[in-house]
């Protein structure tokens, strides 16, 4: 009988309990929000992890693509009265890139020289597309420059490196052209 309480004291007890329940709910909500943030951080970590595969792949793709052989390609020499088709047989992609950069620079530098290098560029692009897209399912872009010439090619509709997505991996390889070191940058992304 001692423990029987009057109405007023009962209400005070209930209020304490409601306070406790509300406090508990707030704590649970806050805890779950913190956990959700933690889970979001994990997702970002997963993206970083995926980029580790990409970083590894970009070097492998670049190495194989540069060593690949183009069986037959060429360009058109427009410098003379009669356009002259020049054939290049069994050349490496590295050699094809060097030829493209050199001839393009010569065309820009000297008024009398003019070359149509679209076939050469197309065949370089084809090799990179087979290596990066067909095998590894990565989009790619290749960029290089030598003196006044510029080479930029990609399997998607991008005109320059500024338009590339942020979530990408790059491999920079140096090659020697006319005694000068030039940088060849391959970007890949998904």
């Amino acid at each position, binding site marked *: 009988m*001692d*423990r029987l*309480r*009057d109405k007023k*004291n009962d209400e*005070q*007890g209930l209020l*304490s*309990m409601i306070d*406790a*329940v509300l406090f*508990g709910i707030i704590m*649970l909500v806050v*805890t*779950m929000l913190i*956990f959700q943030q*933690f*889970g979001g951080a*994990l997702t970002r*970590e*997963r993206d970083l*992890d995926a980029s*580790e*595969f990409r970083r*590894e*792949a970009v070097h*492998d*793709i670049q190495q*194989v*693509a540069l*060593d*690949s*052989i183009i069986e037959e390609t060429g360009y058109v020499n427009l410098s003379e009265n009669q356009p002259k088709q020049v054939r290049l047989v069994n050349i490496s992609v590295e050699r094809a890139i060097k030829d493209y950069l050199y001839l393009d620079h010569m065309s820009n530098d000297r008024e009398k020289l003019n070359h149509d290098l679209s076939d050469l560029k197309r065949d370089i692009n084809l090799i990179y597309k*087979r*290596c*990066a897209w*067909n*095998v*590894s399912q990565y989009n790619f872009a290749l960029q290089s420059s030598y003196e006044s010439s510029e080479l930029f090619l990609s399997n998607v509709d991008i005109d320059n490196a500024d338009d590339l997505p942020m979530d990408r991996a790059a491999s920079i390889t140096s090659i020697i052209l006319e005694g000068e070191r030039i940088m060849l940058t391959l970007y890949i992304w998904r």
Partner: protein
Amino acid sequence: MAINDSYKSVFFKQAEFKQKTFITSQFPIFEEKIKMLKRTMKNDNKGIGGFFFDLPVLLLIIVFITVFTTSLYQVYLPIQEERERIEQNRVCIDLKNSVLNYPEILTEDNGRFSIEKIETLEEERLESHLGLEEDYNYNILFQVLESDESWSYGHELPHEEKLEVGVSSYQIPVSLVDEGGSSSLGRLRVSVWTG
């Protein structure tokens, strides 16, 4: 015994009085609080008391602890899977590097993959070269892109749905050289999984 109890009682009362006097003199606001703290089970009418009142509180506590533990577990589970996946990816990349540097399937002059050597490769020798940990299963596939001809080593690829972490798969282009010395573009796919 009676003297000792009496002595203790007086001692504690004095100590309590001194403490109360000190606190209330320094912080008068606590005087009311101290009065409340002196309540016993008998006169505790302001707090929660009684068996039928404790039961819902106990249920609520159980519900809260359950929800909290469940949400904690939901965060921990992906962390554990993530750790396993990162480790599995690392093993996959190591395995790929081992294959790329395995001299028994490379040509002697330019370090490309020899189709002839791949065809005659003994799986046991490859496995001993790779030195993969026992927990992991692997599958290595060489494929010529033009002819779709392929050679596979290791275990058969499982269905991804059956695995907790899934399969780490890495594929890159490689140069494959045939008996005549002509080179063609191929695919090397390295897959690693556990269980």
